[in-house]
């Protein structure tokens, strides 16, 4: 074991000693995975409880959106470009992965620019990029929409599910009678774009500590220690541990792109419901690029599977082990609820890394 990590764990134990139960929520799927992969829960003192919030964009995509995307894929004139994680998500009847095996034109891309390039090269085909993610990926989509608008690439569309993180955190804080969150581990990649300022309300309005963390085991442990010190000194603030990447003002160019292309609107988060002002929608000028508008798709309310606890898990009220379906009828190869579908989902991370307590 590395000496610096041993020392860090010891300091966390000393600092946590005497404090009451501390519930720290992470709202980033990559943090959820890193915590599981490194087994961090095993080294933390008992009064520190790490809970996973709605940090995986794939997981919070509504079933209705998945059904709409599948409907688009069923038309042989359409070419769907998607990040790999979306393929396995079950809609109410099928998944993109199954549709692909039945012959639908579905391509996995690593960059949205691939979809745009394909659209330019194939003007007779209709290309739909599944635009998903928080502030990390939204600027890339925005840049492409701007390009499509300037070049009049009218066969390029996005199916837009972009969401933003701060309103979801505020929603969680307002539900805190249920989840009792003491502090937040804020998402490093999102904050690299937004900066720390949009998260200031966590300490200023709600009086809770927050630390913007990097992704190694050491980063996360350091961030936990920073949170503990804030609690101990009773000085809640938003601190940046991931300071070699995240600045207070974020990335102004990326923010400008988002502001130019998107308006903010309400959005449905799967398992949670409507969160006010948490979604990004294309400004009117760009609405023709919105597949939902151009292909006249509708939102249909699809009920979540019975007995699925994902809603409570996303709010931090329950842990995956407390769901009756977890590991039984709900597994990564046959997911029932949203938290099991993506590799960065809370249940998926628990299933993969914490299924057997050692």
């Amino acid at each position, binding site marked *: 074991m590395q000496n610096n990590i041993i020392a860090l764990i010891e300091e966390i134990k000393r600092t946590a000693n005497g404090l009451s139960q501390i519930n720290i929520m992470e709202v980033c799927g990559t943090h959820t995975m890193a915590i599981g992969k490194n087994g961090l829960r095993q080294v933390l003192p008992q009064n520190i409880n790490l809970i996973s919030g709605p940090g995986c964009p794939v997981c919070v995509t509504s079933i209705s959106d998945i059904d709409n995307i599948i409907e688009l894929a069923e038309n042989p004139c359409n070419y769907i470009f998607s990040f790999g994680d979306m393929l396995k998500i079950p809609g109410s009847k099928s998944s993109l992965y199954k549709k692909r*095996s039945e012959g639908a034109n579905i391509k996995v891309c690593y960059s949205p620019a691939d979809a745009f390039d394909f659209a330019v090269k194939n003007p007779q085909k209709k290309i739909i990029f599944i635009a998903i993610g928080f502030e990390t990926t939204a600027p890339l989509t925005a840049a492409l929409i701007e390009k499509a608008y300037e070049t009049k690439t009218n066969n390029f569309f996005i199916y837009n599910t972009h969401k933003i993180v701060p309103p979801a955190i505020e929603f969680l804080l307002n539900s805190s009678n249920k989840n009792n969150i003491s502090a937040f581990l804020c998402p490093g990649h999102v904050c690299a774009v937004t900066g720390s300022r949009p998260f200031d309300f966590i300490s200023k309005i709600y009086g809770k500590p927050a630390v913007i963390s990097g992704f190694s085991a050491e980063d996360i442990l350091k961030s936990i220690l920073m949170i503990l010190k804030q609690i101990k000194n009773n000085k809640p603030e938003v601190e940046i541990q991931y300071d070699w990447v995240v600045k207070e003002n974020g990335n102004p160019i990326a923010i400008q792109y988002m502001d130019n292309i998107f308006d903010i609107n309400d959005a449905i988060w799967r398992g949670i419901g409507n969160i006010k002002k948490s979604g990004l929608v294309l400004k009117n000028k760009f609405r023709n690029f919105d597949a939902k508008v151009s292909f006249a798709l509708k939102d249909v309310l699809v009920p979540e599977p019975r007995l699925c606890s994902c809603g409570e898990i996303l709010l931090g009220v329950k842990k995956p082990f407390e769901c009756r379906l977890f590991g039984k009828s709900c597994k990564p190869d046959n997911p029932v609820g949203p938290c099991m579908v993506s590799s960065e989902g809370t249940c998926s991370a628990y299933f993969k890394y914490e299924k057997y307590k050692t």
Partner: protein
Amino acid sequence: MTSSAKNNNFSDKNILLSHGDGGIKTGELINNLIIKYFGNKILNRLEDSAIINDFHNEKIAYTTDSFVVKPVFFPGGNIGKLCICGTINDLAAAGATPMALSMGLIIEEGFEVKYLEKILESAGEVLKETKTAIITGDTKVVEKNGMDKIFINTSGIGYIRRNTDITPLNIKPGDKIIINGSIAEHGLAVLSSRPEFNFKTNIISDCAPLSSLVNEMIGSSDKVHALRDATRGGIATILIEMSEKSKTRIAIYEDRIPVKKEVRTLCEFLGLDPLYIANEGKMVAFVDPADTNKVLDAMKKNKYGKDSCIIGEVTENSTEGAVFYNTKIGTKRILDKLYSEQLPRIC
């Protein structure tokens, strides 16, 4: 043909890419459709090579493998080198010395002859190095767009010395687990040479024939209990299979498993786990602790074994089998089977 899974119903309507990735879905296909019609004592063992024990009083190993790698040329090799190494390594994993191979070529109409020749030349170089030969073959050409460029099937036979008995059933608590070098390079080399992958890396496939290495290992000790070629699904998948077959628990250690820096960085960037990424020149050995040093010394003398090291051990008997991964920070977790392909068509 390798992989294992408990019997489940085969419920899929269409074949999915994951039915070919060596993970849980492949296990379902093998156990519920292939074994259903072909099941027999030898096939059911689902090891790298089939062992025929009483072939005129000789022990013979027999194996086959098909290669569909995309792209056909990648840093560190091509489908020609790969199709010989793959079959040689499957034989070596049974402790067999390769004798002869077959090759079936399936080529798309229009494929450029200069590329075909380069592929055959690379295959020929490996045959020469390993002192083996293609002694029978077949060629088919499929109309343009009927397939993707070139697919190759090879099969191979090898002989096993009478006193050699290499099988997961011989694995015992206390056995040390050795690997001949760093992991996850083949899968990433193939991935990063795909046109849709827009960034450059300097990762080179580890594709290599390991028959000489294995020969020296089993020549140095008669206590090499089991061997496994860590291809699809990476070392995690094969260790899980070995633990299930031997009904033992295995412990491996993050700080002992060699992963090159560029591999680690790319994996972090792409969200991939190097433990689950394919190798094409890595042999994992289970060796009695008494002979570990002897075997390691022999391995380090071979050009494919210079970085050989111990990555873990077999800790105890257990009816279900399990692999525990001990992290650098002193925590541990169980390694799970691969639920879906991380990267399709890597071999």
